[in-house]
């Protein structure tokens, strides 16, 4: 395949190129796009890269952390302000993949990929697009188009108030590096012992990472005790449409999802011995 490579000074220039050429693809870290090129994928013939420093920065903005879409997983791991995302960043691939894989590319990685995105959803992630508009990540993913024209420049997330507020669990068959059977992320703020503004997300359990609204409702306003955990685990299937792929069948995923969500919630409750 003959490829044309275009470098643009900014995301808006790159968005214009993508809008005018449906055989053009935005190139992030290339861990998925180079695979396609190596395979001889004929669905595109142009790659568009940009040199926009804003996409490479991690910025503190009060309660929020703004992450450039071009930041790699290892870039996040080495950033002091992003340590609450370390477990999620470390779960992506092996060391070489983490040096290349970008946060922006993870939003578009097909299931069962998208582990990091699952964490971003649970932290109320908001995507900024090349035209400056913003959209909640969970909505963006639901409407994620395959037209390849939207470029995400930044993702902002709410920083957890404390380290024990955010929890991430990736279940894979191969350790330490394996593709997800499923991934859960939960942000569980508490006020006066009761859960407030709960967010729970799942990866590899639907076509894209999703928010688990029924689980959130079962947890909201409750204390994180055995009864609440069982109520939340009991509705786990409401939010999910587990796929069958090379890693696991839909049936297997649905069977074990309650087990792993329960583990995450028991861990979050601080009852190390379990209920």
């Amino acid at each position: 395949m003959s490829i044309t490579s275009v470098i643009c000074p900014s995301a808006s220039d790159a968005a214009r190129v993508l809008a005018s050429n449906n055989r053009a693809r935005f190139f992030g870290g290339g861990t998925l796009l180079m695979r396609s090129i190596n395979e001889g994928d004929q669905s595109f013939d142009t790659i568009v890269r940009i040199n926009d420093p804003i996409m490479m920065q991690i910025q503190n903005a009060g309660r929020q952390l703004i992450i450039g879409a071009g930041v790699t997983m290892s870039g996040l791991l080495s950033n002091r302000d992003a340590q609450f995302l370390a477990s999620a960043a470390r779960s992506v691939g092996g060391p070489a993949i983490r040096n290349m894989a970008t946060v922006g590319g993870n939003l578009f990685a097909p299931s069962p990929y998208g582990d990091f995105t699952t964490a971003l959803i649970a932290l109320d992630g908001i995507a900024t697009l090349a035209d400056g508009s913003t959209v909640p990540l969970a909505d963006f993913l639901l409407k994620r188009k395959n037209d390849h024209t939207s470029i995400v420049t930044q993702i902002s997330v709410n920083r957890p108030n404390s380290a024990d507020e955010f929890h991430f669990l990736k279940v894979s068959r191969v350790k330490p590096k394996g593709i997800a059977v499923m991934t859960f992320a939960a942000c569980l703020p508490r006020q006066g012992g009761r859960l407030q503004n709960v967010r729970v997300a799942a990866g590899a359990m639907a076509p894209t990472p999703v928010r688990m609204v029924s689980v959130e409702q079962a947890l909201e306003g409750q204390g994180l005790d055995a009864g609440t955990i069982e109520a939340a685990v009991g509705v786990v299937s409401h939010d999910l449409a587990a796929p069958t792929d090379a890693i696991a069948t839909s049936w297997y995923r649905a069977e074990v999802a309650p087990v792993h969500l329960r583990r995450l919630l028991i861990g979050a409750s601080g009852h190390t011995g379990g209920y």
Partner: protein
Amino acid sequence: MTKVPVQITLNGKERSVFVEAGQNLLDTLRRSLGDLTPKYGCGQGTCGCCSVVIDGQIRLSCLTLAESVDGSVIETVAGIGDGAQLHALQTAFITHFAAQCGFCTTGMLMSAKNLLDNNPSPTREDVVEAISGNICRCTGYEAIINAILDVAAQGGSGRQLS
């Protein structure tokens, strides 16, 4: 077909090469620059045979866009020894029988060297993590892990063992 000029420092030597748009670095190293030490295993990022160090970071050359490395410093196994003198890791791989068919070995060595360059006293867990992107179908990994830990115990990656 568009060709793009790329200048790199490969194992300490300045090299200039024209690459095709969309070409991966593994092809450039093997076909255009004649460095056959990075291997083509899968072209998909899954085997780690093509691992090289780019600007101090371990990367997969099969997934690296060649034109994106213009100005970079690249290290491959071809550059880790000193002429006939093997690098300490290469010697340890021999003494620990850490290579059988040898196809994964150059990638393993680069992942191991990059680990020891950044962390001279790794734990066993650190070593397992560092080579987690490198698949070996022959050795069962134990010999490789022991070889790397042995080099670390003897003072790190830079020292040549005789």
